[in-house]
């Protein structure tokens, strides 16, 4: 028997459960996910469109550059006669520079300088000169001229003139052989 005075707290079970609430929650979540997905897809398409657009922009720029290059090449081809002249001149100046710089001590310069040292009475017996070697034999009429020659050599700018030989002929002519390094 149930005692009416005794109040009992019944813990009933909601048979419906939280189904409507959860369903609403799920629906909401589903809607958010769906929207987000579409937004992401939309953004992705925009980005993809941007990438494709950039690609086409770059391609058009490349075409412009190719066309510009082609025009420049045609312009250069039109100036080929001037380029030929320039190449002709440059090849010759290069060669001339090589020739002129390759012989710092040309034999003719050395010859002129050594002969300038010789007294007026001296005559050449023999000269043999080539790059790196210079030998000269001078005939001198007397010892005073020999002495004059040696003095002018000592006063000269040459740092190495060697006396290779000094002889006197029966006729009293002195022959001085000098080598210049």
């Amino acid at each position: 028997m149930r005692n009416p005075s005794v109040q009992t707290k019944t813990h009933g079970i909601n048979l419906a459960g939280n189904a409507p609430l959860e369903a609403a929650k799920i629906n909401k979540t589903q809607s958010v996910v769906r929207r987000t997905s579409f937004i992401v897809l939309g953004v992705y398409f925009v980005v993809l469109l941007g990438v494709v657009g950039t690609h086409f922009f770059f391609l058009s720029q490349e075409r412009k550059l190719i066309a510009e290059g082609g025009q420049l090449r045609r312009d250069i081809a039109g100036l080929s006669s001037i380029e030929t002249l320039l190449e002709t001149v440059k090849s010759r100046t290069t060669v001339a520079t090589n020739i002129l710089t390759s012989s710092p001590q040309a034999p003719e310069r050395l010859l002129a300088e050594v002969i300038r040292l010789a007294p007026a009475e001296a005559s050449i017996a023999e000269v043999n000169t080539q790059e790196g070697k210079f030998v000269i034999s001078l005939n001198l009429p007397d010892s005073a001229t020999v002495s004059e020659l040696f003095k002018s050599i000592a006063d000269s700018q040459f740092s190495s003139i060697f006396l290779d030989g000094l002889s006197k002929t029966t006729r009293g002519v002195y022959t001085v052989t000098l080598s210049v390094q």
Partner: protein
Amino acid sequence: MQLNTEIKLPTREALKSNSRHFIIPLLVFLVITVLSVTFGRSSFNNIFATRERMLQFKVENATLSEKRNTLAELDRTILTRQAQVSLLAVPSASSGPAALSAIRTRAFERNINITEVKLSEKQGVQKGARETGIILEFEGGLGAIIDLIDNLKTAAPIVKISKIKMVGAEGLPTLSADLDLLTFWVGLPTNLPAANQPIANLNQKDLELIREMEKLKIGVGQTIEPAPPAGKSDPFTE
């Protein structure tokens, strides 16, 4: 108190319903993945490749533009004159005969008697040029020979003395001399450099050299005047 708690396992339908929620995000993910792999990646690769090519074209065009401007700025008349001067100094064909002519003229002017001449074409290219060797034997006074040798510096084409040998006899005013010379020539350019090859204008050193070349004097006989018609009447005057 007795609680009737019955745990219900999700049914297949419930699972199906729940998984349906993920279909759209999954499809979006798949679409993004597929498009990224197929379209996006190749687009990105193409963009980078195109950008790289563009950079190359830009560099090449800058070179081409610089070359075009350099060539356009050059004065054809001055350049033609410079080419003529440089061709006299370093001819486009064997320079031996021209050099010999220049030396002979100078020797003649100084009463130097040339007794023997040897001309030889050197094989190969030395220092970017072909060489012609000239060996001269001559007789003359010392002053005249020294003057001749000194004067060869102003001869066109350029000659380089490689050996001098002189022998004098006691009591004789003349000397016998052997002179070994080299003269140089370079063929005309047959091919121009590629269009995208940078080109440099003549520098100060080149211009100074050309000014020096202008001072060189050509020997008589380098330009051959056509002989007047002889033996036949001119058919055009009749």
